[in-house]
């Protein structure tokens, strides 16, 4: 058995403090389970749902159930999100649900890290570096997409009118946070 002092602990790339600048608050998201699911579009339509999460939905849409979310990022790509301690369980459920169907399921929980960007200025701050139309009509609540923020690739999801989640690959964390803080100061 390992001695407890040798048991590794998680270290997130973002500082834990929430920064509030004007009408924008930037806070780290807690660690979570992220599974990248790749599946042929036709198979997704046949399967319909897996682990209680619907897969048959428009690209950039989100479906949520039991605290888990499925984000359709492309014709053959979904990101499944769940609490940090659910990776094994969700992996087993999805693998079982897709038995016999060609798919790829890869745990990427540690690949990314996220920030919650909230407040009345959240959309404008994101638009400092993200060229997407973030109006409620063009980017309604529940939209999630891979896009760019200045010089980084991000995953952008809208949870509420003034609440977004932004994820980047973890080595870009300093840049992402620094850019969003500067964007908030520039509003």
């Amino acid at each position, binding site marked *: 058995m390992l001695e407890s002092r040798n048991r590794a602990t998680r*270290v*997130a790339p973002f500082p834990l403090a929430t920064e509030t600048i004007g009408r924008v608050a930037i806070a780290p998201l807690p660690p979570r389970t992220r599974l990248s699911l790749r599946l042929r579009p036709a198979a997704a339509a046949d399967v319909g749902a897996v682990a209680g999460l619907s897969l048959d939905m428009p690209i950039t849409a989100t479906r949520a159930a039991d605290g888990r979310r499925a984000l359709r990022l492309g014709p053959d790509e979904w990101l499944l999100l769940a609490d940090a301690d659910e990776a094994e369980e969700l992996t087993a459920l999805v693998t079982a649900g897709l038995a016999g169907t060609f798919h790829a399921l890869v745990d990427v929980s540690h690949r990314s890290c996220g920030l919650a960007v909230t407040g009345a200025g959240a959309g404008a701050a994101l638009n400092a570096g993200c060229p997407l139309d973030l109006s409620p009509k063009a980017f309604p609540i529940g939209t999630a997409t891979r896009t760019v923020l200045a010089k980084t690739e991000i995953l952008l999801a809208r949870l509420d009118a003034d609440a977004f989640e932004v994820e980047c690959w973890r080595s870009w964390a300093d840049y992402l946070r620094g850019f969003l803080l500067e964007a908030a100061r520039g509003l």
Partner: protein
Amino acid sequence: MSRQPFRLAQGGRIDRSRTLAIRFDGETYGGFAGDTVASALLANGVHLMGRSFKYHRPRGLLSVGTDEPNALLRVDRGPGRVDPNNRAGAVEAVDGLVTGSQNRWPSLAFDVGAVNDVLSPVFVAGFYYKTFMWPRAFWDRVYEPVIRAAAGLGVAPADPDPDRYAHRHAHCDVLIVGAGPAGLAAALAAARSGKRVMLVDEQAEPGGALLHDVTSTIDGVPAQEWVARTIAALDAHESVVVLPRTTAFGYYNHNHVALVERITDHLPASETREAPRERLWQVRAAEVVLATGAHERPLVFADNDRPGIMLAESLRVLVNRYAVAPGREIVIATTGSSAYTAAADLKAAGLTVTVVDARLAADCVADTAFAADRGITVLPGHTIVGSKGRRRVSGLIVAPLRADGSVGPRRTLPCDCVGMSGGWTPAVHLFSQSRGKLAYDAARDAFLPATHAQAERSAGACAGDMALAACLAAGFAAGAAAAGLEETRTFAASPTRTGFQPMRVLPTDADPGRVRAFIDFQNDVTAKDLKLAVREGFHSIEHVKRYTTTGMATDQGKTSNMNALGLVAGLLDTELPRVGTTTFRPPYTPVTFGALVGPGKGALFEPVRKTPIDGWAEARGAVFEPVSLWRRAWYFPKAGEDMHAAVARECRAVREGVGIFDASTLGKIEVVGPDAAEFLNRMYVNGWSKLAPGKCRYGLMLKEDGYILDDGVVARMADDRFHVTTTTGGAPRVLTLMEDYLQTEWPDLDVFLTSVTEQWAVIALQGPRARAVLAPLVADIDLSNEALPHMSVREGFVCGVPARLMRVSFTGELGYEVNVPADYGLAVWEALWAAGQAHGVTPYGTETMHVLRAEKGFIIVGQETDGTVTPDDVGLGGMVSKVKPDFVGKRSLARPDLVAPGRKQLVGLETEDPHERLDEGAQVVRDPSAPLPVPMLGHVTSSYFSPACGRTIALALVADGRARMGETVHVTTMAGFARATIRDTVFVDAEGVRVHARES
């Protein structure tokens, strides 16, 4: 401080309750809130504002607008906040603002450079091309440095800019550029749709020309009242955004329009509150309405550039908007009607006005009657043949035009200010940038929007409509149509005096060869220069422009293009459009670098990617090096160590004990699916079908041209799952290439690719004691040689976290690469570090990694390879499968030049002097005394001091190298040549026993 002797007693949109003071060339001048620098200086009688570009002639304000070519000022807002080339009429006066003139020495009033004006007969068009031809060598060393030192207007700032600049992307349904009558009417119409409307205008407040219109009414109310009501109506719409002080400067594809919003320059420093100085907007608009107005043309006559000679409409702006008398005794010189409105307003303000109209009396009857009603003297049928004065105009020399076209006797009209009007040029710059095609309208002597390339409409003066009512109606219709409404309406508006007779150069009785009549004020191009260019055979306006530089200054010829085009057409006796027209390019007006850069400076200039272990290395004093966007620990110097000593120590530690290395930046791709092995067979030169799960193999990947693209170890985790590693820098391009092939060539393969570069932190433990350090922290993996031999992989737990543990080595020693989920990377590293203390574990960086692999003859893609190197060139030809039917690059490997003898091959080099370290990139020759150019055999690719060998070692690509073992060659050095012997590439442990650690 002077007391503004030329400020009118009443009127204007200035706030007389808020005084301010600005400085210009060391003097302090008073003004009011609402002034520009130009209006404040003129209120104080300051007309001399600059020296011209080439001849250093005294110059004053020509235009109050952004088309100003002369009055370009240095504006100083404090350290780092110094900007050159600000147009005086576009800079809002702020209390305490420091400004200065440019292009003069020692002072504005006495400028040594004015000698150029005396020498002007020498500085003809094409002067540089004709003069600095010979001797040839003088160009680089003498002519160009001297010309560069003498040329240019303002001085570029040298200090870092402390201001913040912001960026913003925005989307709207209708973007309206210009908030004059047409733009405001367009916004009114579009706003009714409820769609998202943006109205932007470069001036401090919306209104455009209506801001200086004190006589017109619109729908029964005074024009300025109509502006106020319209803005209030627009403000009531939540979906309408009005941005003043915002210039649309670039019109790109898909209605992508770039704007720059000036946010703080008009505020005193105490009120800026760290707001950004400027904001660059990138707007994507479904529809664009251009309502950008028109620019007035100067008249071209001798000495038309004296301070005090301005555009007629600018005089009207100064009087009506800024309550400034540009002079007391004013002559309006014109070939059109609009100048009479200016004359009337000047007269109404109590100034003495005379009008000189170059049109024949019969052609301006209505205008002269209008003037007569107001007691203004008009001299119709008179040309202007010159001006008097030096630093300020003191008289205008006019002469009657006789019926036969000859010029009658001269007379001088004393004056202290001249307003000239040669007609109007629609501002079609943005339309032209949108790739729309212009057509020449002879009746209006203007290029007008004709063929539209994007979802765009032009309305108002920029489309040729100069009358107020027409502008309003056209603007409204354009705004409605852009918003998808089929609405039109008429506006009751005062009539506008429009129409002009274009005269490119006013007739004169003087020798045309001696007349200095300026066409392009900013680049100091005269009518004489254009005539010379045409005479020398330049007939296309594109050639004339480049030869004379007309229209090529920072104002892009806003005031000069039509006069230049018309003159050239007249000289060639051809129609104006046949000479061509100008292609306008962004930016419409100059844009600060700050706005373009935005937040992308300092730490945000370029992302620096950091591994989970980066902070540990930083705390240990690591020196970093950039590898693509990553920063990697280069070496870990101890106190007093230089790089050489640190690397030598790190190398010895790995060979004799154990080293720990952060390899997290390695690219990683998870290849999953029943066809995964087949997919890798097609991507790599070597085969994968027989690799058993739990085993690793080194893979080599080519481009289609047969040259090495990337390499890395691939681990088979399961029948249908591979863990592929790539080089750090190659990760994105390898994944892209793989996706490209998968999606476009082999969509039938059941394979998906997922980047896991950042999922896994990778900790390399290398050295004879690596197993001893690792073993206590591994729960369920047998680390013995039998269970986990070299080039194998297991999944298990390290420090209690799930890990992919590979036994691989890039050092030639017993080695492991511990892959753990990235958030655990630091903790596992620290645990290994702690466990390794008993074994003398040493952290090492990329430099030591490079030395250790070179000692083993392992290549680094991008160091031993340069995009022209095949597997056989680096001695890896044996890896290339001869049984696979195909793989990327296979066909190219059979190309004649890739199989021909004489290719450069990778070899080892040992210098005669064991302490001499060759330069990487140095050339290898056989005979250094051979006549120049000495034939080159190849070059050094890697070179280090090797502690294990006790000497320097090098790798080199040498022609037929493998056939030259033992040959002596010569390698270039900074001092000459070094002798070296060619040998094989493996310097340490040629038998390869250490990596298998069989003795343990």
